[in-house]
């Protein structure tokens, strides 16, 4: 780890007054500083900032510094969110990692994490060894010729399904951005991952009220039963009335460069009977547009099957 200065701002204004890297739970930042992937000269420990609180009275509002485990355990949090959180990391890491930090966590691509390797995300223009290299866990959707790394957050998949917004604050004021608009496809600039401007912080996550999302779930498929990142995951919420799907939300993770909403699958579900056959039919288009790499074509059938399984489990409430 390179030497750095650490300060502990007591207010948002103080945090915005000093350029530097924000540190909350540290599970991404300290990890990547040890690997020299991140080499900040100034680190700001923001844990004294007043960005706390979990409020389920009208949808869900979560202060960015709330910890993953506390949000997962909070009564009234939509099942898809608590299940996505509980499927993430380990209990120790969930005690540490903040909600804002979870949304900003970096990819687990091995080339990104290894400073001896080229990586367009870490060193723009240096190349992407994953495209011809070890890419079994990489993305099949939203990729570019410059980057095929997946977005690692389970929580973000659930939040994208529920149309969540993030409140951002910086020296120049506050703004609100839909999470689907917040994340950027890699395109030609995979180093630009999101809409956060220098010095800005996520202060709050807001999920609009959606009463039928109490019938929701999160299915995560991985190489082992626990404590692993997703090969494929699906967040599903279903509004089922009289055996028909009145409305649906579907988003997937582990297969795309950003949390991936499947609006075409949602359209196909609306008005369909809540049956396995109808779920299979709707999910058949889930992987449309996928571009598999040498070692991850298995993710195409895995994606459709994961969506079907999530729909079946979700339909059982």
């Amino acid at each position, binding site marked *: *780890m*390179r*030497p*750095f*200065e*650490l300060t*502990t701002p007591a207010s948002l204004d103080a945090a915005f007054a000093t350029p530097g890297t924000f*540190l909350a739970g*540290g*599970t991404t930042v*300290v*990890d990547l*500083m*040890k*690997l020299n992937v991140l080499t900040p000269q100034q*680190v700001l*420990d923001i*844990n004294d900032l007043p960005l706390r609180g979990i409020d389920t009275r009208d949808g869900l509002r979560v202060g960015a510094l709330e910890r993953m*485990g506390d949000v997962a355990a909070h009564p009234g949090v939509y099942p898809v969110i608590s299940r996505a959180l509980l499927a993430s*990391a*380990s*209990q*120790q*890491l969930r*005690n*540490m990692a903040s909600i804002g930090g979870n949304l900003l966590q970096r990819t687990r691509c091995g080339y990104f994490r290894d400073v001896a390797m080229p990586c367009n995300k870490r060193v723009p223009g240096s190349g992407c060894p994953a495209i011809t290299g070890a890419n079994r866990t990489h993305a099949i959707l939203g990729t570019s010729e410059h980057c095929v790394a997946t977005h690692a957050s389970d929580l973000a998949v659930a939040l994208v399904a529920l149309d969540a917004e993030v409140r951002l604050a910086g020296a120049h004021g506050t703004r609100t951005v839909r999470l689907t608009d917040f994340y950027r496809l890699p395109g030609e600039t995979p180093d630009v991952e999101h809409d956060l401007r220098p010095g800005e912080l996520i202060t709050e996550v807001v999920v609009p009220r959606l009463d039928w999302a109490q019938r929701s779930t999160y299915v995560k498929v991985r190489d082992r*039963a*626990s*404590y692993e990142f997703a090969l494929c995951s699906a967040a599903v919420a279903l509004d089922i009335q009289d055996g028909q799907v009145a409305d649906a939300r579907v988003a997937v993770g582990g297969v795309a460069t950003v949390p991936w909403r499947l609006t075409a699958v949602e359209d196909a579900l609306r008005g369909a009977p809540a049956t396995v056959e109808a779920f299979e039919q709707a999910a058949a288009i889930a992987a449309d547009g996928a571009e598999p790499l040498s070692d991850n074509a298995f993710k195409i059938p895995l994606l459709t099957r994961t969506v079907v399984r999530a729909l079946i489990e979700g339909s059982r409430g």
Partner: protein
Amino acid sequence: MDISLHINGRAEDLSVEAGVTLLDALRERLSITGPKKGCDRGQCGACTVHVDGRPVLSCLTLATTVRGAVTTVEGLSDGDRLHPVQQAFVDQDALQCGFCTSGQVMSAVAAVEQDVTDVREFMSGNICRCAAYPNIVAAVEQARRSDATV
């Protein structure tokens, strides 16, 4: 940076560089070597300690950012009287080489306190290279039962 840590009921004042982890502060500066350095990057759980009663990974925690009271495996026993979770690990032979054990015990204490039902899921952040998992689960189950009578 001058910091003051509260560890196992004692206040410890020390001066550390900003990048020193809680794990290194405990082991290298305070000779509290219960927490082990396995992977040193938040993947194995051998460094698990409690901060304000919550298990965290001391290898991903900067010592300068610790605000709460730290408990390591050294702080569990009452003199020579083992904590019920420690006794359960002995009774169930829940270790082979023992390197991961202090981290396992710290997570297991939380599992018992939270009365978790899915022990294997809760303990998945503590890796055991000897694969003593069946006996570790048995130890947690024993401690859950004994906890009711302690």
